[in-house]
């Protein structure tokens, strides 16, 4: 086949990006814009089709890549209310914070990632979907391209943006198989509801949204939490469960049902169910995410001709009850694109020239947040936080709000509940103090 597509040669690209999630599409967009011939490969049907998340992205890091974000992106609602609830049985304790500025927005991830991929395509990147990459090909210590089935395409630089289930990276020996305690399973339902009802029930204006995090026994004692996000005409609800602990719970018979039943438990929970009364469940799904913090970050984010971005690079900040992976994926991809552009100007994509990427990451907010929240993994190893603390908090609240005719002070209430729960106050204070400092 002599006739190529004019611009493109069929088997040689400047950059091949594996995975059209947020990180892959960002890298493809910025590099295509800078004049690179970019091939973006995605195994799903259409970019974003395989993705699932909670639902909230921080806007500022995205605006750095797309200043037109606020006008063009599929933003469903700007988050103006942040809620945190601790539930225990029928009791619930809720804290709400009202935001003013356009800090974060909700959007279904397939839509948002689809938009990012479109951006990459219109900048000139070539997106091929339904193409699974089987291998990143390394020759003489240098990544030279990718293989899918029997076909090979070569590239000066390969960007691995395959997400948290980083099979290719493991095959290359650049990452170890993660411990199940460093991974979590997200399970989710999408409920469809008239937008006016969403606004009335959650007390929102037309384009306003709510982000709601839930701790407590809705996870059946498994370390993790729940979430509720309002989209334009849907509500996403779900749970994130530590896989290692979930497996133990299943073994011990604590978790007897399929995890989707836990989401059903959240949907039908008396404290929550009236927010989505009469809504239809129109979708459900599950996806893995990272909980290992720094432990999940590979020893190196670059090698000869290869950069790792997004979830695959562990660029995800999990505070234990909230997951922030999209803005960090976009930022890491932006830094990778910058490093590649600089390397080109310096004459080649050698290890030395690509090292700048890792340095940029270390100087960025992602790394700072990863370090700051690294203690979270420790909390996850300790189900204490997920069983005793919520039960204690709701008990303490009950002492405050349910007439006991003794009018306890807050400290008194906590102390009394702690005694009932047989927890030493000292142990409790130590734990909570450590957590609060880290979150």
């Amino acid at each position, binding site marked *: 086949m002599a006739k190529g597509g004019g611009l493109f040669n*069929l088997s040689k690209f400047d950059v091949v990006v594996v995975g059209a999630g947020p990180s892959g599409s960002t890298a493809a967009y910025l590099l295509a814009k800078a004049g690179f011939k970019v091939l973006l490969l995605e195994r799903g049907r259409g970019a974003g089709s395989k993705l699932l998340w909670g639902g909230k992205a921080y806007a500022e890091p995205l605006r750095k890549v797309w200043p037109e974000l606020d006008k063009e992106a599929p933003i469903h609602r700007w988050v103006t209310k942040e809620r945190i609830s601790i539930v225990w049985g029928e009791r619930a304790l809720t804290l709400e914070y009202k935001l003013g500025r356009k800090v974060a927005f909700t959007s279904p991830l397939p839509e948002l990632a689809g938009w990012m991929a479109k951006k990459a395509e219109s900048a000139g990147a070539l997106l*091929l979907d339904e193409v699974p990459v089987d291998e990143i090909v390394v020759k003489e210590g240098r990544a030279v391209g990718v293989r899918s089935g029997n076909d090979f395409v070569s590239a000066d630089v390969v960007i691995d943006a395959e997400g948290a289930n980083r099979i290719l990276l493991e095959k290359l020996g650049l990452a170890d198989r993660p411990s199940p305690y460093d991974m979590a399973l997200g399970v989710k339902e999408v409920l469809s509801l008239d937008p006016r009802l969403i606004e009335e029930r959650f007390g929102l204006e037309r384009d306003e949204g709510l982000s709601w995090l839930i701790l407590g026994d809705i996870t059946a004692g498994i370390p993790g939490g729940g979430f509720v996000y309002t989209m334009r005409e849907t509500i996403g609800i779900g749970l994130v469960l530590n896989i290692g602990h979930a497996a133990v719970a299943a073994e011990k018979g604590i978790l007897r049902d399929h995890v989707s039943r836990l989401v059903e438990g959240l949907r039908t929970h008396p404290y929550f169910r009236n927010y989505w009364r009469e809504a239809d469940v129109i979708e459900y799904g599950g996806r893995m995410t990272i909980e290992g913090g720094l432990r999940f970050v590979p020893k190196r984010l670059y090698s000869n001709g290869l950069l790792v971005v997004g979830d695959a690079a562990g660029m995800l900040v999990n505070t234990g009850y909230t997951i922030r992976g999209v803005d960090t994926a976009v930022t890491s991809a932006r830094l990778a694109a910058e490093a590649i552009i600089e390397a080109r100007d310096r004459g080649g994509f050698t290890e030395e020239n690509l090292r700048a990427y890792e340095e940029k990451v270390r100087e960025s907010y992602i790394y700072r947040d990863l370090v700051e929240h690294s203690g979270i993994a420790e909390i996850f190893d300790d189900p204490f936080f997920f069983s005793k603390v919520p039960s204690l908090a709701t008990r303490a609240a009950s002492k405050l709000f349910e007439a006991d005719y003794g009018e306890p002070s807050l400290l008194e209430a906590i102390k009394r509940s702690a005694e009932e729960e047989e927890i030493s106050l000292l142990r409790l204070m130590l734990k909570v103090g450590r957590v609060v400092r880290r979150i």
Partner: protein
Amino acid sequence: MRIVVGVKWVPNTQAVRIDPETGTLIRKGVPSIVNPHDLPAVEAALRLRERVGGEVIVVSMAPPPAVKGLELVLGMGADRAVLVTDRVFAGADTWATSYVLSRAIQKISAEIGRVDLVLFGHETIDSSTSHVQAQVASWLDWPYVYYVSSIEPLGDNAVRVERELEEYEEEYVVELPAVVSIAIKAMKPRPVSLQSKLRAKLERRIITWTNADLKLDPRCVGLKGSPTVVAKTVDMPEVPRKKEVYRPRDPKDAARWIIRKMVEDEKLREVMKGIVGDEL
């Protein structure tokens, strides 16, 4: 051998819902896919080409978004695709569909090269009449064999086909040109390949024909050319599930429980009586 494969762009019926008022399919917002029954036909064509050389041309009568589906089939390795699309073709029943397809096949023969074999899937997931293939064969006045499980080249002018029916197998030698439809289980369609997909994207290998190209009488195509009348559609209401879960440790208890449930349920009791008789 020049092989044409008919491929239909269908709404993913797993995602389709029925409008409770009109009883028709709600296609809006439902993603479309290549009719899964047609992929084994594409596979059969590619295998024949691998053995005797030639060309595989995919043809589809569909609205423009079907280009996505044609890209997929080109990605499997088909050489080119013809998208037959025009507003006047809309609303076609099987008769009008087969008329347009047969004229498109004749045009391929006249302008691209003589067509030896036309392959189809066995049926579609959205209408599943299995009428289109037989009708195309009659418009072309070619022989037609259906439910074919394997197809082998036999010189330049014939193919040997096997049909696997419920109780026996049949083997035919069919002279070309001919129309053959392939059973869905006949062969596993190959996945899209990176190189084929790249070529599909980069080289313009999808030809679009409208009625300006086919020049068919507008009264014979689309809704106007469709004699089928839908007399009535019946919506089968969804049976509400009881959502009962019983989890005994002993499987015998589970069996007892389920039998009791079946006996207690009036409708099920009737069904059971039909099976085990009055012993119940």
